[in-house]
């Protein structure tokens, strides 16, 4: 065990003025996840501090020499609304201390029947500690989403896309088969030597025509390259002329969010 691992972290309950450090840590830990709702002072004070069922004594902070390394906000009912720690330190020790504290705190209330914590699936430190503390794992409810402004989202994605190839010139017309009344029926994707333009005009002479419904397009955005190929084989994404399929798949893959990891903390719903 290294000296760092053997360190004893100090735990104390929330004190006025902690919120800035807690928000900073939360935003640092979770900002790379899809589903992240940025914490501002106003949002955090409303979402955590003024939430009925959660008192200031239910917020525990882990410190090392005055530096905030983790915290947990737990309701009296046992629902851990926010839980985060600095993984660059001894994560296991911090997570263990925080979770053990949450357990003791929840058990001290007669009304609590269980304690629950939402965590990213990939976080093996939390998984290991939860297993050691006798937690079981339950499935997270199904997350559904709906794109309301397709051209806007496509523009936003392409603006950040680094894989746009130069030397590719296509005029793609996407025609939505099933679409909400307020949504444009056509989306034009003009690719000209590394420049991509999105509009809602109906192209007169497209080089590629794509017919799909908005669900298929949304699944392509939030899925993987395989999703596009699967949609083509299933017939829900029709690309004409057929010889243009490889190029169209390549262009469509630029609009993919590369399998984002969705993490929804307990505080952000319910």
């Amino acid at each position, binding site marked *: 065990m290294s000296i760092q691992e053997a360190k004893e972290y100090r735990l104390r309950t929330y004190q006025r003025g902690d919120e800035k450090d807690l928000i900073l840590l939360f935003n640092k830990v979770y900002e790379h996840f*899809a589903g992240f709702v940025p914490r501002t002072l106003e949002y955090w004070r409303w979402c955590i501090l003024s*939430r009925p069922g959660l008192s200031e004594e239910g917020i525990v902070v882990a410190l090392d020499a005055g530096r905030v390394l983790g915290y947990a906000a737990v309701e009296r009912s046992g629902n851990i609304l926010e839980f985060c720690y600095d993984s660059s330190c001894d994560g296991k020790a911090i997570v263990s201390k925080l979770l053990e504290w949450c357990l003791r705190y929840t058990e001290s209330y007669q009304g609590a029947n*269980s304690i629950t914590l939402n965590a990213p699936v990939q976080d093996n430190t939390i998984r290991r500690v939860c297993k050691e503390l006798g937690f079981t794992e339950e499935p997270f*409810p199904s997350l559904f989403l*709906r794109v309301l402004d397709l051209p806007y989202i496509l523009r936003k994605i392409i603006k950040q896309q680094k894989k746009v190839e130069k030397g590719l010139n296509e005029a793609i017309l996407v025609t939505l088969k099933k679409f*909400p009344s307020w*949504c444009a029926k056509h989306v034009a994707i003009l690719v000209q030597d590394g420049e991509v333009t999105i509009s809602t005009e109906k192209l007169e002479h497209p080089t590629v025509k794509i017919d799909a419904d908005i669900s298929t397009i949304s*699944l392509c955005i939030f899925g993987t390259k395989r999703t596009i190929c699967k949609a083509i084989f299933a017939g829900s994404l029709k690309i004409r002329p057929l010889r243009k399929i490889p190029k169209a798949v390549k262009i469509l893959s630029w609009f993919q969010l590369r399998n984002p990891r969705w993490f929804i903390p307990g505080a952000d719903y319910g």
Partner: protein
Amino acid sequence: MSEASEYEIRALAKKDRAKFMKLLNDSFKMSDEFLAWKYNSNPSFDQSLVVVAVNRGQVVGGASWLPRSLKISKSLSVRAALGADLAVDRNHRGRGLAKPLIASENTVLENKNIIMSYGLIDPKLVEHVHGPLIGLVEVHTSTTVYKKYLNLSEIRKKVVDMNRIAQSDKEIKKKLEEFDMNVLFRLRGVPLFTIRMSFEEICLEENNLKDADLKVECDLTPSELFKSKRKTLALFKALLTRKIRIKGSLRDAIKLYSLSELLRILFV
């Protein structure tokens, strides 16, 4: 004429606010304090993102959305709306009222500069209720829920559900005719408990190690047990790898397996 047309679906007006809160209070047992926090003191609450169904001057249904900035990938944020509450008064349920309330998302979120809507929805409801929401797709999440039961209150509720199903399902009822068994469960994250299964009743007892005919120990999480499409295969695999251990007579174990659909309630 559909029954839903007896109702006027419109944006929440100031005069409806208290009635809408009462509806949520009755439907979800949300306290006044909680509702005041969730709506009135929410810094991003927008009253125009609430719709109500009105019948003879009474608010009998409602749906609400909460706007927020949402990350949809590592580096991309959009303005989104979380589908928050959907409630229908118990006397007006079963009349197709939820559908138009949900469909109002199309008009409510229009011109609000909202790019996406999202929510946690029971997939069973999507087909029947969320049909009008064209483009609604399920995405894979990387969120998991760790849970530890501190007492048997939640298991007790599950046993009530088991009894209800046992009484209404003829096949299960028939299988239970020959049953009189005490099964001790040692599940991960749950205090030790025994279930007494008989034709008259399924009841739960704490501990009761002595009278158990069968002991079931399980290290698997419910999602590990039931995520597989081939549940029987997953069960046998778990038995072979000793992630599920059953102590008792083989005859009793087979009898218990015949009620696996009923026992599933305990695990999810």
